[in-house]
């Protein structure tokens, strides 16, 4: 490699400006393990295979299409859904009128997990984190006056994917639209559910069969429909850095390809209908490079299967900006963050995009925040003039070098996963989840130390003035859904429904196509819960294995251990006085599957000298209370992010009392709108720790409460 003729001169100048230090001291090691230098030159790109290719042509680094946005801009596709189908439908239609191009449906957690709205395990979940759908009747209302032959609809559904996809097909059919005309995407990416998203229902093996059944059915009957959206977004939001996100996502993709091939399908029949979904964070250049690297690697991974259709090798993707990067503190900053992330996604060449609302860390978007979020994209698309040129950063020394860094980092991990026997096997070992959780714990430790700056949270903090306009979904939605279920069950032909459900169960035992069977049942007005149950009889319900990392949070403090030591001393002093360490039960109640926070807090508290019990996921308040009482913990830490807190926390406190555990304190963390703090304190909680709370602070406050009590 020959150096740039001016390189020596630059080094001298830089050294002088650094008062004698070498410019190497400016190098930055990213969380991905990529060394970033202060200057890149043409020499850095020597020998890189991906450089100097053209868009629309393999290996597609510069974009899947030849003309990209210069021909047609990306699709603005905002993810939304809340409350009842009627309310969501109104919201969709307003947004479409205001410039949104595609629909993307967010279902509530009861629906995701295959429970009808009248199930006892979901009282805190109905309509809260998405729209409640119990039957095709709800589905028809959801798409009322939205012509499904023209509108491309994306649906985030993985667990209850069969009854929901069937519902969509039947709703279209009753609108007069035949299934072969349907365009859009079903997420149907079950592997990442076990890894990060936690809305699985059945164990992996039958779930993979469901994925294959859907791919099989759609490739025959719905040629324009994307059958899997292989998602890295959730991994990023759970804590994965960009190399992990790329590696695990592509490895998931490869697993689906193998599963489909194993059913005897030809690669070109289904591979062109696989799409991707990536998350875009605040490291501006990194995620531009990530999208380019992902396209390169997908081509490399699929090539060995010898597809004839070039579309099989092409990675097309939806993107979403990072919700995790958005803060409850100083919330209008979030508009700026989202704009930066939006630019990253665009410069990386996404095919469609969701931009988050500034009230992300408080609740579901309001009409106003949703408008600003949508306009963020519209401004970039229609005012900024960035669309004229394809891959405008192609040839940037830095971006090309980063692209290479991600390609080689991710390739290494993918090889490791292949050695374990593929992603399904790797997930069984727990390796990918632990890597993500480790990455999340390190990130939290860096934020708590102020090493990673988050404006408003650990730097430039302001006097809080909480957002006033917050969307709240009340219990009235559950009541209405339960009522509608009763009506539905009274009107339908019970015998026909029963027969259709039994047919599903038989299919599950044997080998009929489960989507075909589900369509028959949904058409007969079977509910989402009934269809799910019909399969659960055979498949069982999956129970996650919770593994925990330890020592990572503290180790990220390096030699800078003063705060850690101080807290360890406090826990030890407590133990000396009380006869045991402070003991906390960290719990998730309801169908809320956000486990990043609970895991980070648990591992950090253990590092700080607490004894930390962890409950299984999806507990009822009574189950959590029983565990707290038996383990005799000092306090229960409720992590609540899906808006169930106002229902579940009072129920927990009542259950503790009923079981004689009135001395057990309750603290609540997660997405709690500031307006609800008072409610929770009144209900009996002794601490509320919202997004952005430093774990060191919450541990100190928790100990204050315990010491006062035992005083």
């Amino acid at each position, binding site marked *: 490699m020959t150096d740039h003729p001016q390189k020596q001169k630059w080094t001298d100048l830089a050294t002088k400006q650094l008062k004698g230090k070498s410019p190497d001291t400016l190098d930055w090691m990213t969380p991905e393990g990529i060394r970033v230098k202060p200057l890149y030159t043409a020499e850095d790109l020597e020998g890189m295979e991906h450089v100097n290719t053209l868009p629309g042509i393999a290996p597609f680094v510069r974009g899947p299409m030849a003309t990209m946005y210069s021909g047609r801009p990306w699709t603005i596709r905002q993810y939304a859904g809340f409350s009842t189908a009627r309310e969501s439908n109104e919201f969709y239609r307003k947004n479409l009128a205001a410039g949104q191009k595609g629909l993307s449906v967010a279902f509530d957690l009861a629906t995701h997990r295959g429970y009808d709205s009248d199930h006892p395990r979901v009282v805190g979940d109905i309509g809260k984190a998405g729209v409640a759908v119990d039957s095709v009747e709800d589905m028809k209302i959801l798409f009322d006056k939205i012509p499904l032959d023209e509108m491309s609809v994306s649906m985030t559904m993985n667990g209850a994917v069969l009854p929901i996809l069937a519902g969509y097909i039947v709703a279209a059919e009753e609108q007069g639209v035949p299934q072969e005309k349907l365009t859009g995407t079903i997420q149907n990416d079950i592997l990442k559910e076990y890894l990060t998203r936690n809305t699985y229902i059945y164990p992996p093996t039958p779930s993979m069969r469901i994925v294959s059944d859907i791919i099989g059915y759609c490739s025959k009957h719905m040629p324009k429909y994307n059958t899997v959206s292989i998602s890295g977004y959730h991994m990023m939001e759970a804590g994965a850095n960009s190399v992990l996100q790329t590696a695990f996502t592509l490895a998931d993709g490869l697993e689906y390809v193998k599963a489909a091939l194993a059913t005897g399908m030809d690669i070109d029949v289904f591979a062109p209908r696989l799409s991707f979904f990536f998350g875009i964070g605040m490291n501006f250049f990194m995620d531009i490079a990530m999208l380019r690297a992902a396209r390169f690697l997908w081509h490399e991974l699929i090539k060995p299967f010898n597809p004839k259709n070039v579309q099989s090798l092409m990675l097309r993707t939806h993107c979403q900006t990072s919700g995790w990067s958005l803060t409850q503190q100083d919330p209008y900053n979030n508009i700026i963050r989202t704009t930066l992330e939006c630019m990253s996604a665009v410069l990386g060449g996404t095919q469609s995009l969701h931009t988050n609302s500034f009230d992300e860390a408080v609740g579901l978007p309001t009409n106003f925040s949703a408008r600003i979020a949508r306009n963020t994209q519209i401004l970039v698309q229609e005012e900024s003039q960035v669309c004229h040129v394809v891959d405008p950063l192609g040839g940037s020394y830095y971006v090309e070098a980063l692209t290479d860094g991600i390609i080689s980092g991710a390739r290494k991990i993918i090889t490791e996963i292949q050695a374990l026997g593929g992603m399904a096997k790797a997930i069984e070992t727990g390796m990918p989840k632990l890597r993500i959780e480790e990455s999340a714990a390190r990130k939290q430790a860096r934020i708590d130390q102020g090493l990673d700056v988050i404006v408003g949270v650990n730097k430039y903090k302001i006097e809080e003035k909480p957002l006033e306009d917050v969307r709240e979904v009340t219990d009235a939605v559950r009541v209405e859904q339960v009522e509608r279920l009763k009506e539905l069950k009274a009107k339908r032909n019970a015998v026909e429904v029963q027969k259709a459900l039994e047919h599903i169960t038989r299919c599950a035992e044997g080998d009929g196509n489960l989507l075909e069977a589900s369509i028959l049942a949904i058409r007969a007005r079977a509910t989402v819960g009934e269809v799910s149950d019909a399969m659960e009889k055979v498949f069982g319900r999956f129970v996650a*294995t919770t593994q*925990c990392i330890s020592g990572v949070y503290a180790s990220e403090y390096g030699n800078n251990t003063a705060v850690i030591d101080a807290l360890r001393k406090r826990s030890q002093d407590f133990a000396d006085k009380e*006869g045991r360490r402070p003991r906390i039960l960290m719990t998730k109640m309801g169908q809320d599957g956000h486990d990043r926070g609970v895991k980070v807090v648990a591992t950090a508290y253990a*590092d700080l000298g607490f004894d*930390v019990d962890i409950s299984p996921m999806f*507990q009822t308040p009574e189950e959590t209370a029983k565990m707290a009482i*038996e383990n005799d913990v000092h306090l229960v830490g409720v992590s609540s992010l899906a808006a169930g807190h106002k229902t579940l926390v009072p129920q927990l406190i009542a259950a503790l009392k009923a079981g004689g555990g009135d001395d057990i304190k309750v603290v609540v963390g997660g997405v709690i709108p500031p307006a609800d703090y008072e409610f929770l304190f009144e209900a009996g909680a002794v601490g509320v720790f919202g997004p952005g709370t430093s774990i060191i602070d919450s541990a100190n406050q928790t100990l204050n409460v315990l010491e006062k009590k035992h005083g």
Partner: protein
Amino acid sequence: MTVDIDTSVNGLLNGNRRILAKTITLIESSLSSHQSLAQAILDRLLPHTGKAVRLGITGVPGVGKSSFIESLGMLLVGKGHRVAVLAVDPSSTRSGGSILADKTRMERLCADSRAFIRPSPSSGTLGGVARKTRETMLVCEAAGFDVIIVETVGVGQSETTVSLMVDFFLVLMLAGAGDELQGIKKGVLELADAVAINKADGDNIEKARRAQRDYETALQLLRPASPNWSPPVLTCSARDLTGIEDIWSVVLKHRNIMTSSSELDQNRRSQSLSWMWSLVEEGLKDRFHHHPEVQHRLPQLLRQVESGMLSPTAAACQLLFLLDKA
């Protein structure tokens, strides 16, 4: 913690879960005031103990102990038993704190009102674990639980300790890749009343059968602890619920044989004796380390022995002699 002994005793005998939990906390406490309270309660409870089946389960981390207990436990409560599970977690971090996640693998059992599960951090001495677990077991018996399962990780000494407090000691194993007996401590097999190869499911069934034969051979080379019982080797899947019922039958069969040969009683009596002796040893050590004179003299004597100025024997004599001074 304010505790009234009568209330505790009555509550326990009535099966009050909260009082049971609180009493275990007293037993586990490092404060001597708590411990003497616990002793007072235990003394009153002793006549009501001894009726449960005491089952110890060991195996390397990840072998499936917690999952196995979930499956066995659900089977047993289904048969009308009341099951208490004591899980000793060694996952203490350098901070002294620990993460107790066993219950995440016992999702159904821990929600069941017929079961009581108590995971305990092992912080402190190993002897401490033994005392605490043993006494906790007794309290659970007094509270009406008729099957007590103790989960312990097969590392260090804890499996020996636990085998000395149960009637039946089950060792869970995994089928490896051929070299079955490598890396397994012989000592653990000597303690076993039965060995079960877990995760005998899916592609693993054949491998598990092979492991079963290998262990059978290995066990034949050991002298059984009882002339009336040769430890069998079984296979099971905690995940698919196969082989669990068989293992329970083996436990019952063992119990019948041991009862009719009076070995069950003999065992428990000799366990009591060895428990007493270990308490004496632990107490002596404790007294030694807390003796003010010892604490005062120790640093200097240590230095002298280290530098060769004093023989270890002479130093030990001097230190022990200090105990005799009031």
